């Protein structure tokens, strides 16, 4: 029977198991301290009462509540485009004399919101239009490039690496940055949004598709080569049938991402309801902002739901 060795480098390292965890935790704490100190962030800021009050104020006003802060507001029917019944005298007194801040429920909230949504029908549909066009052209364009970025199809290392690097560069830039650049160059509107989404979709589709192509069964491709088909025919009959279902799945997945992204592209001027969001925010019409936020949430949930259902069907 052997006696356990108490020394030896491997054993010493294994005994230091707890040391590894301790060092990791220490490193993470240091990272936290370094970041928060150089960003001049004190934990107290997260939790101070003023912070929550300010955020709560905004969130309330996103909903069916109107803030009454000044005596003038309290005494008049405020806002030509925002008529609200006058509050009762007790409340008027509270604001004018006691300096209180009141939140008044807005009557006919739902109808007014539905009206508003009707008004913004066009930008809303624009959002979908941008996503659809961008996703479609992006997916289409991705096909030839994904073939070039597949190791098993491309013989020239130069071509392979060039395309790979180009695709990686495209994907490194976030979609909103593309939108901002294009909106700045081409002017505001939906077109820069479409192009931005197109570039983004192109990059994502190409990467996913190229990975798919790299994992195909080489058999059919070999068979096509053997029977004397040219390169295009080899791909059409040896590769495409195998990756077609995955290509469609990826295209739909990217479409889903595009719809989510298109809701916020407008923040930089690239069309869709994001533009409205900016406008309403600037004019501090928070109820409308709230309506747009709800629309965004509904879109996100709907896309999530649809894609889950579609994915279940496909699998």
């Amino acid at each position, binding site marked *: *029977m*052997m006696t356990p060795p108490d020394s030896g480098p491997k054993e010493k390292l294994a005994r230091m198991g*707890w040391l590894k965890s301790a060092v990791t935790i220490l490193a993470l704490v240091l990272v936290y301290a370094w970041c928060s100190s150089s960003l001049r962030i004190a934990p107290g800021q997260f939790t101070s009462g003023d912070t929550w009050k300010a955020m709560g104020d905004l969130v309330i006003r996103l909903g069916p509540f109107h803030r009454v802060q000044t005596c003038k507001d309290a005494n008049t029917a405020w806002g030509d485009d925002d008529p609200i019944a006058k509050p009762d005298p007790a409340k008027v007194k509270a604001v004018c004399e006691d300096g209180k801040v009141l939140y008044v429920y807005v009557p006919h909230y739902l109808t007014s919101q539905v009206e508003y949504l009707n008004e913004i029908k066009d930008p809303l549909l624009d959002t979908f239009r941008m996503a659809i066009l961008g996703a479609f052209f992006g997916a289409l364009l991705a096909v030839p490039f994904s073939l070039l970025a597949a190791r098993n199809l491309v013989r020239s290392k130069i071509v392979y690496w060039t395309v790979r690097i180009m695709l990686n560069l495209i994907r490194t830039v976030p979609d909103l940055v593309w939108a901002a650049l294009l909106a700045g160059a081409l002017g505001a509107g939906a077109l820069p949004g479409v192009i931005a989404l197109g570039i983004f979709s192109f990059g994502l589709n190409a990467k996913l598709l190229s990975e798919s192509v790299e994992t195909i069964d080489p058999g059919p491709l070999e068979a096509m080569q053997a029977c004397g088909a040219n390169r295009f025919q080899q791909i059409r009959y040896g590769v495409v049938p195998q990756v077609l279902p995955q290509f469609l799945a990826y295209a739909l997945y990217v479409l889903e991402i595009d719809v989510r992204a298109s809701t916020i592209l407008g923040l930089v001027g690239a069309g869709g309801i994001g533009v409205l969001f900016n406008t309403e925010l600037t004019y501090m019409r928070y109820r409308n902002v709230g309506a747009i936020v709800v629309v965004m949430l509904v879109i996100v949930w709907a896309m999530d739901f649809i894609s889950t259902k579609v994915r279940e069907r496909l699998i």
Partner: protein
Amino acid sequence: MLQFKNIAKTFPDGTKALKNVNLTVNEGEFIVIVGLSGAGKSTLIRCINRLVEPTAGQLLAFGQDVTKMSDAELRRWRTQVGMIFQSFNLVKRSSVLQNVLAGRLGHTGTMRSLLGMWSHDDIELAKRCLERVGIPEKLYNRADALSGGQQQRVSIARALCQKPKIMLADEPVASLDPPTSHSVLRDLKRINREDKITTFVNLHFIDMAQEYADRIIGMRAGDIVFDGPAKDVTEQTFEEIYGRKIRPEDTRAGAVREGA
């Protein structure tokens, strides 16, 4: 010392795993339970540490009814019952030492165990348990770097570390090759002799049952159909227990011939 009184277990889906089990076990016995899959062997031994809750009956252990124990009492009882599993159930990424020390969890406070502050005595105990199963040099190796037989030994060491009064082994050798299987059972037998730990082993290999058991219990469809000393058991007894003729895959040696 351990008594099953009219123990029954019906699962929520209606399966009657144990029908009416009466059994008395004395200290230090080495009992092998045989039977086909689904006969209730696993359910029976899991009643002992209440990993399975009996739906009827009493289980008296040293005078106390296990089925009526509170949570705290149950945990204390479980520290007295060591269990080894067919799939070893080791924490793969942890070291052998950590796995064996887990046997002391029931005796260690939560905070200390979370921080890994095992007492010196505990660590020494763990080392001694590993020595007893013959692999002391593997102390600091990762658990999944060991062979099957070695992993099962580690789990035996973990059970030993609990200083248990009872040892349960649920198909301990089903995943191991024949020589290793015999080796593990020899270890279990030796520990049973040396420490006088009452041992229950589930096996479906009849030749191993005959070789190692003091007492054999045969189960069929939730009932005990045979209970007697191993020397009284013949192939015919097994046929009665199984309700069919013996096949080659029922014996360990036979399993080798089949190329299994």
